[in-house]
């Protein structure tokens, strides 16, 4: 299948350009990539770190699958992560005395609710006011980060930290150990969050392909007009898809706080200071996973490895971790660009079925050797 080949080809092409960039730093790409692979997948500690890093990515990716399948482009993962993290952190700070069996589920639920609420705003704006959700979610990202910076340096700041020249670090005090996500493998960072993320991915899979909501969401995603004609509420489906998507991203926020090493919510004042850009990285993961939550598990693990290994590569070769960001961007560019292999073939079929001359426009035909190859394989 054409669709399949796109992913490894995209990844290899991006890594090849990455190799050129490593060369530009005067380092050996083989040394660099070997350090990356070793840092990501070499040994149990590395694997656990990768799985840990993959956890929020998978949650955001699962949320992205729900939204995009319903044709809602939720680019607001960053803001929804922050909203979920703030809501759950505030809860844990307010109720430190609750027993762990109650507190952990509670913070997870509150985080999901916080993320859902933040995404729901954009969902309602799209469904009832026709506001482009890509724009509203991006603007809401900016708002969420500023609110977080305010709360973490003001009302929620840890006042008992030792005072430095630059002032207080924008972070909360250490959260009650009863709210921490339990460690699964002693001696590593691997915690309950991984299981939560896998459960969410499984739930999203079942929801999308084995539930009434999933059917409606996919119908609305494929053709809002047809779905409305069949009696489905496009507006309600849009809002619901956004709520679910936001809930998954909100959970990622809880994982970043209660599954972190520092066990507190901390930022550095920059846009990605708390999230580490996971809200965008998760979208890349979902795209690479074919907008399917099951494949997103694999994809999240690979990209988690890329991010963890990037740090190891920086240590070995001095190439900054920005290289990983660059490679991610290239992967997206290549995946969406090569998607035309599939759509090109489909369009050709459609034109044929409608009684056309069975050919794409002359320009499209002459343009691409790749397309001819694709046609031979379909």
């Amino acid at each position, binding site marked *: 299948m054409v669709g399949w080949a796109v992913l490894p080809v995209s990844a290899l092409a991006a890594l090849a350009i990455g190799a050129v960039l490593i060369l530009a730093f005067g380092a050996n790409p083989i040394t660099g990539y070997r350090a990356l692979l070793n840092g990501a997948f070499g040994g149990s500690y590395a694997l656990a770190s990768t799985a840990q890093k993959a956890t929020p990515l998978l949650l955001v990716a699962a949320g992205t699958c729900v939204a995009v399948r319903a044709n809602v482009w939720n680019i607001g993962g960053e803001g929804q992560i922050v909203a979920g993290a703030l809501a759950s952190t505030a809860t844990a700070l307010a109720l430190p005395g609750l027993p762990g069996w109650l507190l952990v589920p509670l913070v997870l639920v509150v985080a999901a609710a916080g993320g859902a609420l933040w995404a729901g705003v954009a969902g309602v704006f799209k469904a009832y006011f026709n506001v482009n959700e890509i*724009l*509203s979610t991006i603007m809401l990202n900016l708002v969420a980060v500023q609110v977080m910076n*305010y709360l973490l340096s003001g009302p929620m700041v840890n006042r008992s930290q030792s005072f430095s020249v630059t002032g207080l670090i924008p972070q909360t005090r250490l959260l009650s150990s009863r709210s921490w996500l339990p460690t699964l493998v002693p001696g590593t960072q691997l915690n309950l969050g991984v299981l939560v993320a896998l459960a969410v991915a499984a739930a999203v899979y079942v929801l999308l392909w084995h539930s009434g909501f999933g059917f409606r969401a996919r119908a609305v995603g494929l053709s809002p007009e047809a779905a409305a004609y069949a009696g489905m509420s496009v507006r309600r489906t849009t809002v619901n898809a956004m709520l679910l998507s936001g809930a998954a991203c909100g959970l990622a926020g809880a994982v970043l706080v209660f599954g972190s090493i520092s066990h507190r919510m901390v930022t550095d004042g920059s846009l990605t200071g708390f999230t580490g850009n996971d809200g965008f990285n998760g979208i890349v993961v979902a795209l690479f996973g074919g907008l399917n939550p099951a494949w997103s598990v694999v994809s999240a693990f690979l990209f988690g490895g890329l991010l963890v290994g990037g740090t190891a590569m920086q240590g070995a070769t001095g190439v900054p971790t*920005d*290289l990983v960001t*660059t490679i991610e961007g290239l992967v997206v560019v290549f995946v969406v*660009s090569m998607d035309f292999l599939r759509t090109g073939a489909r369009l050709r079929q459609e034109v044929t079925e409608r009684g056309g001359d069975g050919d794409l426009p002359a320009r499209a035909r002459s343009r691409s050797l790749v397309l001819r190859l694709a046609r031979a394989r379909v």
Partner: protein
Amino acid sequence: MSQFFTYAVITATIASAVQYAAPFLLAALGETVGQRSGVLNLGVDGIMLLSAFSCYFVALRTGSDLLGVVVGMLTGAVLGLLTAFMSVTLRAQQGISGIGVYILGLGLSDLLFVRFVGTPLPVSSLPNVSVPGLSRLPALGPMFFQQNWLVYIAFLLVPAVAFFLYRTTYGTRVLAVGENPAAADSVGISVTRTRYATVVFGCTMAGLAGSTLLLLDGIFQENLTQSAGFIAVALVYFGAWRPFGVMTGSLLYGVVTAVVLQWKSLGIIPTSAADLAATAPAVITVLALVVLAGRFKQPSSLGKAYVRGA
């Protein structure tokens, strides 16, 4: 509050509001032309970042702001070709390909900075150019006519783009391609060529916007734009795809930003609440989108690739 309502403070605030508006305006004007032809380019922020770096690098090495701006715009044009190739030729899903360009720009700009510059040195700041005569007007002079040359260019481009879109044959072709590409195609207008031209123009403007932002700041840093490119795209919707509407939106954004900063420095907003107040421009933009979205129709083919006969 009384210390805000003085002649000197008000004029200084408006002057900096006009300056803050300039990069948003430049990027949004370019995006307007692209969207009018039916192409949604969400990669503006990434293009601004890479252009800002190339402008910084050249300005730092040569000492020439002008040369920096030219190279920044060229960077935008090259990325424009890439964007057009993806959106028009390969018919990629435009929302997500733009996110790809954004992430690429975010990573690559800082990577290049670390590799080729490393230590952040400032470039010479942009000198203000007084407009003869007008700059001596009371109040209006210091607000609008003692700016740097990039600000003048940004605002002069507003009537220029409006004239192009509404009063020239080429502009009408752009509108036709955006509203109904099949009809435009049937009368012999090349949809592909038109869209390539508008996208490359839009990205060159994004390059100019990134260069402007860099020269206003005087120094490059990671994620310098702070999502300014995304805000510019939002301002296109805000301005209902009209150059003067986009200018109004950019000025509103600039005014709110400048007032918040001024109030912060005057102590009207306590330092602790400054972050909260900084959300005002984004919140206002979202609310404006809610109010305006129902009233104006977007270009009919926006975001949709054109396939003849499909």
